[in-house]
């Protein structure tokens, strides 16, 4: 077990080091294959590790990291069934995305850097999935943040991409402050911070302390998972290459916040306020993302807002304490959203870097029918059409909210239901506009056969997007829920109220999805020749960016300008310059005395003699 876990972590790390050292010398094709092989090795190790895993979690240690003054940090791994499945999912999706990337990056000159960061990202993501010690987990947490930053700004010749990377980095750091503060509180209480320790001793914390720690962790999760109020970095993160968006900003990294809450579920159980906060904010974000997605024209930005929205549903379930429900939606989302993103990458390349769905249209569908089928599979799952994976997983999160007592959860349920309808609407708007409409100015097609080759790794994902829901069907269907059964004993079992609510929610959800589909057809069917609305509030994400720019960035910039121009240049530089000018003036005056003129020397001599005599005379008198 120890060896397989070590191998799982070391494969992508070694791959990253290998890419950094030899990638550019190796040639494009070999470099991509080496990167994919490293991830394939990690996937094999993850499968081998999970195959014989029992219900009891396994603790594996790789030695101590550092220790001082009552704080000890170890490279420890808590390998339970949630972590095992998460590792398999991460490596599986990452493998497909690596294979896709080998074709997608076929013209890019910096392929070695790309694959190096991608492998490094997989390593850090696995650290998050496996780590027991929360400081060790934080290493992975920051590591994925760094890889995300580096890959968003991957095409760094354009300043806008670099800015998007910096924005993502800074905004997620704001959330990380919550993580660090929570770590500090935990270390002060226990001497070290680990997930298993927290699970065992969460009850011994005072209620106020538990709530504070849990709220801080929830805030950290909001930052990482682009939830309100820290959501606005994710749409800009689409500046990176599309496979990166699929891997980091859809399938894995943005769900790390949900995963953290799943790991800390025992803590949330003793801090109900934090759980309610996570649920309510998650549901509000689900609605926010869905509404904003309605106003976008860039296919990647639609998908980015939809990611924000779908991760909100995961928070809804995680806040209700339903680990397997949140995990179910996390996995289903990882499959269908990475599928959709990679389809979007193909669409963009097939239209010569055109992102606007209003310039794609039916030609694209006729040229690439396979792509349309793939995209439709992902879209159906995202819109939660029965019986796709998204239908079952999203229904489960809504049932959690409905079954949970308390007004916060009821509000969250209502928000989630409205968001579900809007989701279906924006998804089919995207499908109808991008694949059926006849645009006035269609993008020029690109007939490179390599583009069609990129569809190959997507078929497994399309299959999973359609059928993965049957891994965890609701109770009324009388099919054994495999995921719940597998996680029983690891996660808290679902309460009977949820099962009771599931039939109602499932019917409501199916109705909403079909209603959204119908409304989208009514509004955006090709016969109506849909045209893009002008950019407005929805396109700008309801003005969240402008609000931050005005209320936070603006005062900060003004303060910085004052400190720079006023304090630094005027006061500090001015003081130094004035001192230098004073010394220089004094030297000029002194220099005149030493000019070599006889009269000056004589005057000085007589003056000095007179002064001495005067002094002597005064002393004698």
């Amino acid at each position: 077990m120890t060896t397989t876990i070590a191998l799982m972590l070391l494969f992508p790390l070694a791959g990253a080091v290998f890419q950094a050292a030899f990638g550019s010398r190796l040639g494009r094709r070999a470099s991509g294959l080496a990167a994919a092989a490293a991830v394939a090795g990690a996937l094999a190790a993850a499968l081998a590790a999970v195959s014989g895993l029992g219900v009891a979690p396994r603790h594996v240690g790789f030695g101590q990291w550092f220790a001082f003054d009552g704080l000890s940090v170890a490279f420890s791994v808590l390998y339970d069934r949630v972590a095992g499945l998460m590792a398999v999912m991460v490596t599986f999706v990452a493998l497909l995305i690596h294979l896709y990337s080998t074709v997608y990056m076929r013209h890019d000159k910096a392929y070695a850097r790309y694959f190096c960061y991608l492998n490094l990202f997989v390593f850090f993501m696995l650290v998050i999935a496996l780590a027991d010690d929360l400081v060790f987990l934080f290493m992975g947490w920051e590591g994925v943040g760094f890889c995300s930053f580096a890959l968003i700004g991957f095409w760094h010749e354009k300043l806008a991409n670099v800015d998007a990377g910096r924005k993502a980095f800074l905004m997620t750091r704001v959330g990380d402050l919550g993580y660090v503060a929570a770590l500090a509180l935990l270390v002060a209480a226990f001497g070290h911070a680990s997930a298993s320790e927290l699970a065992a001793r969460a009850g011994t914390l005072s209620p106020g302390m538990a709530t504070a720690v849990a709220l801080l962790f929830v805030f950290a999760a909001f930052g990482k998972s682009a939830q309100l109020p820290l959501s606005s970095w994710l749409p800009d993160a689409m500046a990176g290459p599309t496979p990166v968006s699929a891997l980091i900003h859809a399938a894995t990294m943005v769900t790390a916040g949900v995963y953290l809450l799943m790991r800390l579920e025992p803590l949330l159980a003793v801090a109900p306020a934090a759980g309610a906060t996570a649920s309510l904010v998650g549901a509000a974000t689900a609605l926010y993302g869905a509404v904003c997605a309605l106003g976008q024209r860039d296919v990647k930005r639609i998908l980015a807002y939809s990611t924000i929205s779908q991760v909100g549903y995961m928070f809804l379930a995680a806040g209700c304490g339903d680990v397997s429900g949140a995990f179910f939606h996390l996995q289903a989302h990882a499959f269908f959203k990475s599928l959709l993103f990679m389809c979007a990458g193909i669409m963009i390349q097939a239209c010569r870097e055109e992102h606007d769905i209003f310039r794609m249209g039916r030609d694209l569908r006729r040229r690439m029918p396979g792509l349309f089928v793939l995209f439709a599979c992902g879209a159906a799952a995202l819109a939660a059409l029965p019986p796709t994976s998204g239908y079952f997983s999203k229904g489960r999160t809504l049932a959690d909210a409905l079954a949970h007592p308390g007004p916060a959860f009821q509000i969250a349920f209502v928000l989630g239901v409205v968001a579900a309808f809007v989701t279906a609407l924006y998804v089919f708007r995207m499908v109808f506009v991008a694949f059926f409409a006849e645009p006035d100015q269609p993008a020029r097609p690109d007939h490179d056969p390599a583009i069609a080759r990129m569809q190959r790794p997507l078929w497994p994902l399309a299959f999973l997007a359609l059928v993965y829901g049957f891994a965890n069907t609701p109770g009324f269907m009388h099919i054994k829920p495999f995921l719940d059964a597998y996680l029983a004993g690891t996660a808290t079992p679902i309460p009977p109220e949820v099962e009771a609510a599931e039939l109602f929610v499932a019917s409501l959800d199916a109705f909403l999805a079909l209603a959204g589909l119908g409304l989208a057809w009514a509004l955006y069917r090709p016969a109506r020749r849909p045209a893009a609305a002008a950019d407005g509030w929805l396109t700008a994400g309801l003005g969240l960016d402008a609000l931050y720019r005005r209320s936070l960035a603006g005062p900060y910039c003004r303060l910085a300008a004052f400190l720079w121009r006023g304090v630094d240049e005027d006061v500090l530089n001015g003081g130094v310059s004035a001192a230098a000018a004073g010394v220089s003036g004094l030297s000029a005056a002194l220099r005149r005395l030493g000019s070599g003129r006889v009269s000056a020397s004589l005057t000085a001599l007589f003056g000095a003699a007179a002064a001495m005599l005067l002094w002597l005379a005064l002393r004698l008198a």
Partner: protein
Amino acid sequence: MNVPLSHVLAVAALLFAIGGICATARRSIIMILVGVEFMLTAACIAFVGGALAWGNLDGQAAAIIVMGVAAAEAAVGLALLVHGRRGGGTAEADDYNRLGGRP
């Protein structure tokens, strides 16, 4: 002796001050040398007055030494002036300012 020592010293001091002002205020080397002669003479007067007041010949001996020094000083100073003029210089003291460096 009819003249008191204080008067002699006052005359000497006045003469010394006149010589000092002449030496510092004038630009011409000749006039500076004249000012220096004035100051040496003032010192001589003070020495001679002291010798008379206390009946001691040491002061007169010092006066004779000062005369010798004055003669030597005038000779060397004028020789330097002639040398400087021959080398293309002037009689102005301020033109010989190479000790101050090139401004």
